[in-house]
């Protein structure tokens, strides 16, 4: 975890905010196939997760991948992950628009639960930017 948990922290922050009508926030955790119905029910899904892409920590990149193979090779640590879900959505015939907000982080070597002090400070701003972006796109 550490800064890799930035997606969860941003979700937790969003829980405490008043979200626009029609927008819900879910901490999907490591839900695998358990998330299928949540994804199917949405018109647009905004995913928030960490990325190790060498950019300055806190940089947000908005990606709009279409198929599972467009997603990065090491997408998730879990053996039923988002890629399987994306394929499943196509098979079942209802695919939401998906936008991936990738937040750049610096890798830490030791596993910890807490965000680094800098990342922790940046959470509200990241959440606000994502919310602003979300409003423009729905």
């Amino acid at each position, binding site marked *: 975890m550490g800064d890799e948990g930035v997606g969860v922290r941003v979700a937790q922050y969003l829980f405490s905010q008043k979200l626009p009508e029609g927008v819900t926030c879910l901490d999907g955790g490591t839900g695998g196939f358990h998330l299928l119905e949540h994804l199917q029910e949405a018109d647009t899904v905004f995913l928030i997760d960490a990325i190790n892409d060498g950019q300055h920590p806190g940089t947000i990149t908005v990606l709009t991948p279409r*198929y599972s193979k467009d997603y990065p090779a090491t997408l*998730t640590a879990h053996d039923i992950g988002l890629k399987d879900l994306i394929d499943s959505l196509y098979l079942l015939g209802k695919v939401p628009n998906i936008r991936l907000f990738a*937040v750049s982080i610096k890798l830490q070597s030791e596993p910890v639960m807490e965000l680094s002090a800098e990342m922790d400070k940046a959470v509200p701003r990241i959440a606000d930017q994502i919310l602003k972006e979300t409003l423009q796109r729905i």
Partner: protein
Amino acid sequence: MARIVVDPITRIEGHLRIEAVVENGVITDAFSSGTMVRGIEKILLGRDPRDAWAFTERVCGVCTTVHALASVRTVEDALGISVPKNAELIRNLMFCAQYVQDHVVHFYHLHALDWVDIVQVLSADPKETSKIARSISRWPKSSPKYFADVQKRIKTFVDSGQLGIFANGYWGHPAYKLPPEVNLLAVAHYLEALEWQKEVVKIHAILGGKNPHPNYLVGGVPLSINTEEVNALNTERLNHINKLIGDAIVFVEQVYLPDLLAVAGFYKDWASIGGGLSNYLAYGDLPTASYNQPESFKLPRGAILDRNLSEVHEVNGRDQNEIREYITHSWYEYEGGNNKSLHPWEGETKFNFTGPNPPFEHLNVEEKYSWLKTPRWKDHAMEVGPLARMLVAYASGRTEVQDVVNDALGRLNVPVAALFSTLGRTAARGLETQLVAHWMKEFYDDLIANIKSGNTSTFNDSKWDPDTWPETAEGVGMTEAPRGALAHWIRIKDKKIENYQLVVPSTWNASPRDAKNQRSAYEQSLIGTPVNNEDQPLEIIRTIHSFDPCIACAVHLYDPDGKHIHQVQFNQRGL
């Protein structure tokens, strides 16, 4: 002699790597490596033991609730807490729902395409598929038109070439033996199972407050029972659960099992491939009295050695001579040295990565080569999982289990020894699902009877307050994840976690060699397996998938690449 590498071994993504040595078309040696580190043990140090379940629940995306269960039991064991009957029943219901969902998903979505050639679906005659479907099951979706429609859908996906599940297979491999019509039947049910699995897990949302990651509680369940109250477990919600259980039984009996037996009939050669180890371990679960009375478990606890089904050995998680972990070939170090083993109460989690950085060709298997430790029971390498559970139950004289196992063996016309194989492992999972679906209904009926008798207690608060705890305590919480024996060990000191260790099923099965160079289950199961085409090692995948691999982990990352990605960047100086 060739060295084949399969990485990742799971269908689309994952963190398990297999290296197999092939001589004259047969595997002569194999190495299994977990390629990602799990650091949850370190994260838990110093925390409140009552919170541990919420952290461990997220270790894995598919075993989620069972880690929470193992965790609360560990703390209850350490502090001497017994939970009310209703809590035991509600935990059992969640356990059963998890099994039925997970086993069905494993069969159709993670394993079926090792046996079912999806491209062959296109040449099937839907009328013939309909005839076959109606000859093996009463399941109503079986008309020629239905199968023709499915075929059309699949054609669109195959033509587009965009879906990972279709792109990543070894289609056309000579080891695929099903007629096109049976392939079509299986693929139609692949799609149906995908829709169906969303329903049964609603039991988790009802009983656990939310899904994914339902809530647990040390001392009981975080749920009040009141048949009249809107926000409690009320009559409406109970009825909903009852309906979901009924639907689950029908799906398992009319779709999963008939498909399993139909497909297995074409692959009987796999009843003598992939057996691997001859020792089996089950911690057991589903108490009908209480967790502290293992003899009351529907799935009994015990160990079998040398495939001797006339003797079941007792298993004790607290006995420090029984379950111990080696790190001889794992990227960790122990204070006492490389060849030592430790009981989990004494367990150490000190990383020592000495492996190559990617890209690399082969792991150095003479040294350390995996992020998984190597657990042993009385120094024996053990297989865990549905096959181990069914064998321990069978050998323990459980007639319910013996009946379904003997019936399936009879229908396939194979001897008991056929169980010790890749096919046996896959069949055991299906038979277990049938049993568990019916047990879920029994537990539901017990819960209703209990509530009707006026017993609505769900929480024992006698030891909730840390002031009631001793200065030090140690506990073990054992359960069975769908993919095998799972236990957590805890040491509590001054009301905080002093040590916490998880020994997960895939550690038993997928671990590297121990100090005596004994192979674990995955590695051993591959020895003797034929490989028709070294560039398409379908046979390796069949056997490894029969274990339902899942390398639990808590690390999460994106590396950017891919073709259809549209990128927009902002916040260039984010911090």
